């Protein structure tokens, strides 16, 4: 998107600080979501509130031991992830919550076999895929024709290699005259971050329930 150099690229210290601060951002988000105060976290860690605040206010160079302690105290796990560095580097390292979101969207695979199974489901016949995904159809047009324009919310419930699963979707849907099932290609909109070219999958739409545009 730009020719700038990301701030973490200036020195190893900057890079390390970025990783540490990305981790504590996850910790603080979890604390906020679960209503855990710094005092409560300190109690769980058997440390002083001041020490916990010091770490969260200025993460600096966190040790792996400390990251595990903080994560475990909040019921979380930790992985250190290294990945292909040939991806666009101007944007700095991919933030940890992006990896978490991808993992959650892939139905939290516990190993590479499960991760691969999620990927393979894309190649299954439509009927099988349809059982994994639904899309609420809220608008359609060209009644009497073949193609219907659809704008709705796609809510897949199992990995199909897609991002932004709860975002709005745009696509063409085609009703099957025998089964009444609406099917078609749906493209995520707006595209999300660097995933913008991966937005197509097949889904079954729930029965039409919206206003028809240009109905005959």
């Amino acid at each position: 998107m730009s020719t700038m150099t990301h701030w973490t690229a200036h020195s190893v210290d900057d890079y390390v600080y970025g990783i540490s601060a990305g981790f504590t951002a996850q910790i603080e988000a979890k604390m906020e979501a679960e209503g855990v105060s710094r005092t409560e976290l300190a109690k769980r860690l058997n440390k002083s509130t001041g020490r916990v605040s010091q770490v969260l206010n200025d993460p600096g160079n966190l040790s792996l031991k400390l990251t595990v302690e903080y994560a475990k105290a909040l019921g979380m796990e930790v992985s250190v992830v290294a990945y292909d560095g040939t991806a666009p580097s101007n944007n700095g390292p991919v933030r940890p919550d992006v990896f978490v979101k991808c993992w959650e969207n892939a139905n939290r695979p516990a190993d590479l076999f499960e991760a691969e199974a999620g990927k393979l489901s894309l190649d299954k016949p439509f009927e099988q895929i349809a059982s994994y995904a639904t899309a609420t159809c809220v608008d359609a047009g060209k009644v009497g024709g073949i193609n219907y324009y659809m704008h709705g919310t796609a809510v897949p419930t199992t990995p199909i290699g897609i991002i932004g699963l709860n975002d709005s979707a745009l696509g063409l849907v085609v009703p099957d005259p025998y089964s009444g099932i609406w099917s078609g290609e749906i493209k995520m909109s707006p595209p999300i971050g660097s995933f913008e070219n991966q937005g197509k999958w097949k889904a079954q739409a729930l029965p039409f329930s919206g206003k028809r545009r240009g109905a005959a």
Partner: protein
Amino acid sequence: MSPERIKFRLVKGVKRTASRAIGFLGGDDRLDASAEFGKLKESRRRLILDSMDAWTNGTPDISTRFHGWPNDDECWMCYVFKAREGNVGHRFYGYLCNPLPDARGFRVCVICTHARKTERASDRAELLFVKSWSQSGEALAAIRAGLFDKTEMETQTS
């Protein structure tokens, strides 16, 4: 024609994504965020940069680091980035806007002012001041120009 008084500069080193960008508004004595950001201790500067990264990444608000006031009838567009230094809290106040009507969903965070806080709550006057800039046509023109300033982007590689 006189050069524009108000300027918008993307924050050096923070990624701009297809959905979000963040920068400093300057050119008026009261718009002190950029100058004050440059004076921060390195660790606090890094923490704020990381928070800005998180925001452009799409990370939901974390009240201890960055957040808006989406439920405030008057100041719903205001936004703040925070870092603590001892008993003092650094606050960088700005507002969210979309200066590109053709890019639905695109958001720019326009950082305007800096404040040192010892109490938890934000100063209402600070938010209202920032809000006044969100309604400025001069600021909007500066933001649009700053987003596409190739020269500026290239200087950020140094």
